[in-house]
């Protein structure tokens, strides 16, 4: 093997490495490259993408309206019409088109999942940010602020999340918002503890000490040094929490705490409705069940892959 040196003044020697390998890549670009190489991440991403597309373009995917019960005459206590050319997945027990219900159900799940996770993320991350920021650089006063916030969060954490969600939904009444708030509230402690924890560990790092040695203000150290290094795990957790949120929406609907409007298709309520016809038409329960499971799996795979990709220990 021989290495030929380029003539003087020629292009720099790259020794066969592509340009970007030499100059390196930023944290997020590198993470996405690693996500792309991981088969389960691709599977997760595809599931998530299909789910989102179905949810967004639901009206284009079906000619019918959800919860119409147009064909209720064809449904009898002992038979529910199965798949046909007009109704790809047959009818449900109320006489609505099952495919339409499934497609619009995806839309509900996405909206509930995203909104409730966003509520949990915003409230939880704010609490975690304040606690972590004060705890990381705040000295003695900061540590008492941190302790106070985190004890409140611990109280929230001590209540089982489903129970918390049920109580909130029960207090706020049976509507879509109470479900979102209930599920979001159950996620608050997760985000708060996660962000605070990673901020505290970043607060002990060398570059924070170095920033202190430069005389930078504490606020500046937290905002421009500690936070950017701490948000990664929180973003990953949000992806993973979308999966849990979708399952919890179904669970709350199953318990009868979701939106009561029958015109809104919802996978969890479809499960309840399917129960008493399970002997006649098991697909009515299996389809939404499988949809919930696959969607949750998709978000989990994607979130896990993102976590691995962002974790510096798994690099190279």
């Amino acid at each position: 093997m021989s290495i030929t040196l380029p003539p003087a003044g020629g292009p720099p020697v790259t020794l066969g490495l592509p340009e970007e390998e030499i100059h390196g890549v930023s944290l997020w670009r590198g993470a996405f490259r690693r996500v792309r190489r991981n088969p389960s991440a691709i599977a997760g991403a595809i599931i998530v993408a299909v789910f989102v597309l179905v949810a967004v373009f639901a009206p284009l995917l079906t000619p019918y309206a959800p919860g119409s019960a147009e064909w209720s005459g064809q449904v009898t206590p002992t038979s529910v019409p199965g798949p046909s050319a007009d109704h790809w997945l047959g009818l449900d027990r109320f006489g609505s088109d099952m495919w339409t219900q499934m497609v619009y159900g995806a839309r509900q799940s996405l909206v509930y999942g995203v909104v409730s996770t966003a509520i949990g993320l915003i409230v939880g991350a704010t609490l975690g940010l304040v606690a972590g920021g004060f705890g990381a650089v705040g000295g003695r006063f900061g540590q008492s602020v941190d302790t106070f916030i985190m004890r409140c969060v611990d109280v929230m954490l001590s209540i089982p999340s489903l129970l918390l969600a049920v109580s909130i939904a029960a207090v706020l009444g049976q509507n879509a918002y109470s479900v979102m708030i209930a599920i979001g509230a159950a996620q608050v402690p997760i985000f708060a503890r996660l962000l605070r924890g990673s901020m505290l560990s970043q607060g002990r790092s060398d570059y924070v000490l170095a920033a202190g040695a430069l005389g930078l203000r504490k606020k500046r150290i937290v905002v421009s040094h500690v936070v950017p290094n701490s948000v990664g795990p929180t973003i990953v957790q949000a992806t993973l929490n979308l999966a849990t949120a979708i399952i919890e929406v179904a669970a709350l609907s199953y318990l009868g705490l979701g939106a009561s409007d029958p015109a809104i298709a919802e996978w969890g309520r479809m499960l309840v409705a399917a129960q008493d016809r399970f002997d006649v038409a098991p697909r009515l329960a299996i389809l939404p069940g499988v949809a919930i499971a696959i969607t949750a799996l998709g978000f989990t795979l994607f979130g896990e892959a993102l976590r691995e990709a962002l974790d510096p220990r798994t690099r190279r």
Partner: protein
Amino acid sequence: MPTPAAPLLTVRDLAVTFGVRGQRAVHAVDEVSFEIRPGQHVGLVGESGSGKSVTSLAIMGLLPKRGVRTSGEVLWGGRNLLTADPDELSRLRGREIAMVFQDPMTSLNPVVPIGVQVSEVIRRHEKADRREAQDRAEALLRQVGIPDPGRRLREYPHQLSGGMRQRVLIAIAIACGPKLLIADEPTTALDVTIQAQVLEVLKELVADTNAALLLITHDLGVVAGICDEVNVMYSGRIVESTTRNRLFATPRHPYTGGLLESIPRLDSPRGAPLRPIPGSPNQTIPWTEGCAFAPRCGNRIDECTSSPPPLKYEGDRDLRCYNPLSDPARAEAVQA
């Protein structure tokens, strides 16, 4: 030695104790006193765990508040930094006293571009806008010998090599023209060839800016290249303190002697065994009971383990030893 200028920094009887409730307190630094005059280069030498870095962090006021007791005085322009108000200290840090840390791999924020990290210290201490600070940052990177500084400013720390990162840290430290630069093992994490380059950069910069330098290291070679005065620390106390030439020519403390003996030399015959200091830095006795170095010392006498040796002025140096090395042959050689 008569000295014309008043000291820039005076450390007097500095003691740092780490204590966790229910456990025995650790005296990391005790009875440490030294002075740094404007433009002077002072070395603080010792093994790992001898209290060098703790001393530097105490000067900067960067030790954690919890579980740490600090006493003594760190005088800077007539003020005691140990009791100074935190805001005042933070205005001082980075502007008048700056620090270069040991590990360039972890001392730069991995998710913030180099340019922001260099310019933020300028913007903190001087009324410079973003544009101005960015231009100054570029000039600084050029000054520390980083090629293509314009592009480097937009890059992230992991895109730079260790030597380049250490140069960036040096650039950040000198950004506001400090009067004192504290360099805590600035070359330990680097390859030997890079070490030399980085030291050269450091040396030139302190010469150009006329800053004083407190160099903390375990590497006597580095000290020999840069420092005027050297303080040797062992187990949290200064054991020998003198000028560089005297220290290297006639080490008097057995520990200093041992450090010099343990450096491999190119001109020693091949096969000649290296002579390390026996034992490990963990084998110490508390200074309150005697000399901490006694368990490893070849010159030990009974007195060493019965009472702590005081730091005494011995004509040309401060020395903390009951039975110092005397090396008339080397002493004569230097005088000749």
